[in-house]
């Protein structure tokens, strides 16, 4: 192997033109055989576990199938029609958008405020604080579910009684069992869980703003508030768009947290698109804590695949739109920068 490579290199050096021209595609493949060996595990894994399943699940959308054996009952586009007319699907859809619409602004606002406080270089122990606020982000959803379920069941004598005595509510609350509040409780836990990522993103963004800009602003007599509006906010605009993009995409795909906390229950009151699809695909059969959505349903893989494909298209439109907006902003900014440089040159 070793001698061969050097030999090849030597041949290439002594006779540079003629052999290269005549070299066939096959020779090229042969020469790169180790590259193929090195990408083989990657190609096999991606083909078998990513590409094939996407195509296969697209095929499932055309069948009425409970997931056992091979799909035989061909129903055409009937599954898609069913999805469009399915009340629970649209309810779950609404819940997912409510989750996103509340979680994203609240979480990003809190993360930004915290990042601004922690970014102050004169603040001591800022690394320690950052760790404290980041920690929930590395906790597994299963642990979160267990701890919060235990915590809520111990609210009884403490929080609930106090809230009742303050006339904020009338009877003890079943935090994860009351259909009116369960989604809000999950949103609050969601904010708590993933705020750390956005905090770190914002801190990274703040650090990309050159210190000279603040110094220049100080020399020009800008106060802290003016510096915030005219230096910090414009400096964060580009990275902020990416943070917003990731936060929206992540929230629209929420699954684990809801699945382990309530499984979408009670009676679909906290059902989001992905938990609903999951229950349709497995009929609640794969839930470690028993059925979640309130009712155990007959698995319908065709319907679940169609719902999932349909929702995938919606996500594609949303993320595609956002990606175009980010690219457009970047381009405009670059143009403005070059314009400013040109101007400075003149």
């Amino acid at each position, binding site marked *: 192997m070793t001698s061969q490579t050097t030999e090849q*290199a030597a041949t290439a050096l002594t006779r540079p033109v003629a052999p290269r021209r005549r070299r066939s595609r096959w020779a090229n493949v042969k020469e*790169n055989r*180790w*590259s*193929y060996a*090195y*990408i083989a595990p*990657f190609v096999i*894994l*991606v083909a*078998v*576990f*990513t590409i094939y*399943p*996407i195509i296969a699940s*697209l095929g*499932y*959308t055309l069948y009425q199938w409970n997931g056992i054996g091979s799909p035989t009952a061909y129903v055409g586009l009937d599954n898609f029609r069913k999805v469009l007319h399915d009340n629970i699907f649209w309810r779950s859809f609404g819940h997912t958008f409510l989750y996103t619409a509340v979680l994203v602004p609240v979480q990003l606002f809190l993360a930004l405020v915290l990042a601004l406080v922690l970014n102050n270089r*004169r*603040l001591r122990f800022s*690394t320690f*604080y950052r*760790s404290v606020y980041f920690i*929930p982000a*590395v*906790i*597994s959803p299963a*642990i979160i*579910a267990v701890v*919060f379920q*235990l915590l809520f069941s111990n*609210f009884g*004598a403490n*929080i609930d009684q106090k809230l009742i005595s303050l006339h904020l509510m009338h009877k003890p609350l079943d935090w994860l069992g009351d259909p009116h509040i369960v989604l809000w409780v999950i949103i609050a836990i969601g904010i708590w869980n993933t705020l750390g*990522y956005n905090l*770190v*993103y914002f*801190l990274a963004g703040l*650090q*990309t703003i050159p210190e000279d800009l603040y110094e220049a602003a*100080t020399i020009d*007599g*800008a*106060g*802290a508030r003016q510096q915030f509006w005219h230096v910090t906010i414009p400096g964060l605009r580009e*990275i902020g768009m990416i943070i917003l993009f990731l936060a929206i995409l992540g929230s629209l795909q929420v699954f*684990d947290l809801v*699945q382990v906390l309530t499984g979408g229950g009670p009676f679909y009151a906290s059902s989001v698109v992905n938990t609903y*699809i999951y229950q349709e*695909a497995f009929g609640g059969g*794969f839930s*470690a*804590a028993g059925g979640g959505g309130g009712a155990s349903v007959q698995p319908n*893989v065709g319907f*679940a*695949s169609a719902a*999932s494909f349909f929702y*995938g298209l919606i*996500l*594609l439109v949303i993320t595609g739109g956002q990606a175009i907006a980010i690219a457009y902003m970047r381009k405009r900014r670059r143009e403005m920068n070059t314009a400013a440089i040109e101007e400075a040159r003149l």
Partner: protein
Amino acid sequence: MAATTATRRRRTGHGSPLRQPVTHALLLICGFFWVYPMLWAISGSLKSDSGFLDSGLGLLPHGAHWNNYVDAWKGANFSGYFTNSVIITASTVFFTLLFASMAGYALARTNFPGKKVLIGVILVTFFLPRGYTIVPVYDIINQLYLLDTLWSVVLVQVAGAMVFNTFLFMGYFRTVAKEIEEAARVDGAGFHQTYFYIILPLARPMLATLGLFSFIQSWNDFMTPLVFTLGQPHLRTLSVGLYAFISQTSTDWTALCAGSIISLAPIILVFVVAQRHIVAAIAGAVKG
């Protein structure tokens, strides 16, 4: 004159001696409530059964009841779950890094026929709607006779992490100076030797970063081990075992707390040790 007012303003804005303690107090109080659920679980894992009910949301246990940990570890088989988690996570991290760095190296450094097509296909799959892929994946695992084995979980996790990790390795290897590699080749190193002795050691920071990510992801993964080990309760990972435990016991809450802490401890330990690295890696993800 203008400069002095400006400095004064700045000082009051950020680091005035009066404001710092207020900031610290606020950060500490909020931070306490932020991690309170976890502190409460730690304390709960040390309480006695009756103490757990009496103290409600209180944090101080009366003496340490370590036997909760014994109950969870032996009685609820957390020792077995722990072993499963360690085997799965270690294998997933190892194979993810190995396969992804190999592919990343080949993609970054050689121009084999078909490379562009391959990258194109992978980019397209990024944008295809995902569909409900766990059903066909389950089917494949079943046909490979791997259902209800730890390897099925490793296989699915590694496959799921492939694209992301390979692309990061590819980007990283492109930045490594080509001269180093050529020098190695002139010295007589073959393809494998260059990769193992030159390229991999150079990629140590990337290996650390992606290794940490895969560790956290694999350790915390809930759905993959749940679905693929459903028929064999003794193959459960900590996440799945803990979650199953809550539906089995409605009374042994202190052992549940202990189980949570057993599941959480390794992640927190890794986080504390590699904190700077993790944060830098996450920050790097949005900067690019």
